[in-house]
């Protein structure tokens, strides 16, 4: 009873809440880092150094007027933010934050579930998330959101191919689809897959930027061309849901990248015995630290790079990343067969 029901439920509650808090503070972090990159201070008024800014933002968004355009498709308009948010959250079900640990005299696994098709689950749930964007644009019954949502869906579908192909080469190396098994494979191979699959890592990272609609690929919300992007007609909490979904997706991409390429909860150089004094740091700390590095790079990239043009984006996706990903996959397969001989 306790093992089957109470503990998983507690884990779900903790992970969901941690994610939502993390997401709101990601927004603050982004504003701060970009401000520093531009020699500004960023939010400073609410709380010391502005650390209560997310609370103020949340209150503001909740008490704002919630408008549905008259000619909008009401049901779809209401459903779109929910459809965008839910896939971003349920992906956390298979992400391993740490190994099995003892908590309060009980063996607890630091992941909600370890399913045989874990990585495939991540990809398939993420592929449903695109509906939120398409439907938001369509249901608003407004020109710019529709254009933005068409751009967004074309972009997401294109980059999904490249990203999924890189995942296949990681699966080939690890020999499993389960996220936990992939981390264990890195433990027994004594090396992070970042060093085995550097090309796959690069493609995954670029594809991740495009999949989460982040700069320099933030075409769907290019303010200069599209007023606000696919969520132009949304206000208040519904707008906030789109906003939070984007940041939740960033955390998902970072966690998946950490799990696949940076050894998940493993400490650096898991094979070097002289570094074993690092073992007192719990695994989930490593996981969070590695994910944080990714999130920081996401923001850093946004502060640094200008936006791509739409045709450049498509050319990069179809003519560079996908062929490279296929090449990487073929080479990985050949090397794997040669090693096995």
């Amino acid at each position, binding site marked *: 009873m306790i093992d089957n029901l109470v503990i998983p439920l507690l884990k779900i509650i903790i992970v969901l809440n941690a994610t939502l808090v993390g997401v709101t503070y990601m927004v603050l972090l982004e504003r701060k880092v970009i401000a520093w990159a531009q020699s500004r201070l960023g939010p400073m008024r609410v709380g010391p150094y502005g650390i209560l800014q997310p609370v103020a933002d949340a209150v503001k968004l909740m008490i704002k007027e919630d408008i549905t355009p008259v000619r909008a*498709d009401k*049901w*779809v308009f209401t*459903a779109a933010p929910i459809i965008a948010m839910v896939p971003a959250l349920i992906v956390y079900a298979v992400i391993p934050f740490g190994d099995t640990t003892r908590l309060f005299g009980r063996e607890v696994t630091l992941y909600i579930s370890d*399913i*045989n*098709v874990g990585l*495939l*689950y991540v*990809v*398939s*749930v*993420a*592929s*449903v998330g*695109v*509906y939120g964007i*398409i*439907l938001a644009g*369509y249901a608003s019954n407004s020109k710019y959101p529709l254009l933005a949502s*068409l751009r967004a*869906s074309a972009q997401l*579908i294109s980059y999904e191919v490249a990203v999924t192909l890189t995942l296949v080469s990681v699966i080939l190396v690890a020999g499993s*689809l389960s996220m936990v098994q992939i981390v264990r494979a890195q433990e027994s191979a004594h090396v992070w897959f970042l060093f085995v699959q550097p090309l796959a890592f690069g493609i995954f990272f670029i594809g991740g930027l495009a999949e989460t609609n982040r700069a320099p690929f933030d075409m769907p919300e290019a303010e200069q061309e599209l007023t606000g992007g696919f969520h132009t007609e949304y206000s208040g909490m519904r707008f906030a849901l789109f906003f939070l979904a984007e940041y939740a997706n960033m955390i998902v991409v970072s966690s998946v990248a950490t799990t696949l390429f940076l050894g998940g909860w493993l400490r650096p150089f898991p094979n070097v015995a002289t570094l074993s004094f690092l073992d007192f740091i719990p695994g989930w700390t490593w996981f969070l630290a590695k994910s944080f590095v990714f999130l920081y790079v996401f923001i850093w990239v946004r502060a640094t790079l200008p936006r791509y043009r739409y045709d450049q984006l498509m050319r990069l996706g179809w003519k560079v990343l996908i062929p490279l990903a296929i090449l990487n996959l073929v080479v990985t397969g050949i090397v794997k067969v040669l090693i096995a001989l």
Partner: protein
Amino acid sequence: MGQAIAFYALSFFILFFAVLVVTTKDMVHSVLFLVLDFLFVAALYVLLGAQFLAAIQVLVYAGGIVVLYLFVVMLVNLKRPPEAYQDPHRRRNLGLALSAAILLEVGAIATYGYVNPAPALAAAPLVPGISGNTEEVGWLLYTSYLIPFEIASMLLLVAMIGAIVLAKREL
């Protein structure tokens, strides 16, 4: 017991959304009900222990193909050209004939299943020495079902090339 309840609940939803797909007037809503339908079918696969198939169902059908449906429905002009005169009973007769055929088929399957009940699902893995849903599917695809698998992939390749040729008149 729990499995039976889950099965009937899922089947109810699958049929319910399938009916909504064909009866809804708004085409975009109809496509959305199709997505829901596919998701419930995926849940049915999970119930049957076919997690790999469930994930693929969501990835390919709900997340891939229906997005393209949605594109077509949203972008194609839906105003129909005036139709030429047709026998008003033609459609009804066709529909009646089709539903009669399907009814016969379902009846035949039900009778067959009643006469020869299916053997209970084996708890042991289908392929000895291999554990895991994905591994089993892969093993079977590349051993027992290699030829159908290759034919299907050939067919997809032909369709892909055909689509490119149709879309680009001048290559």
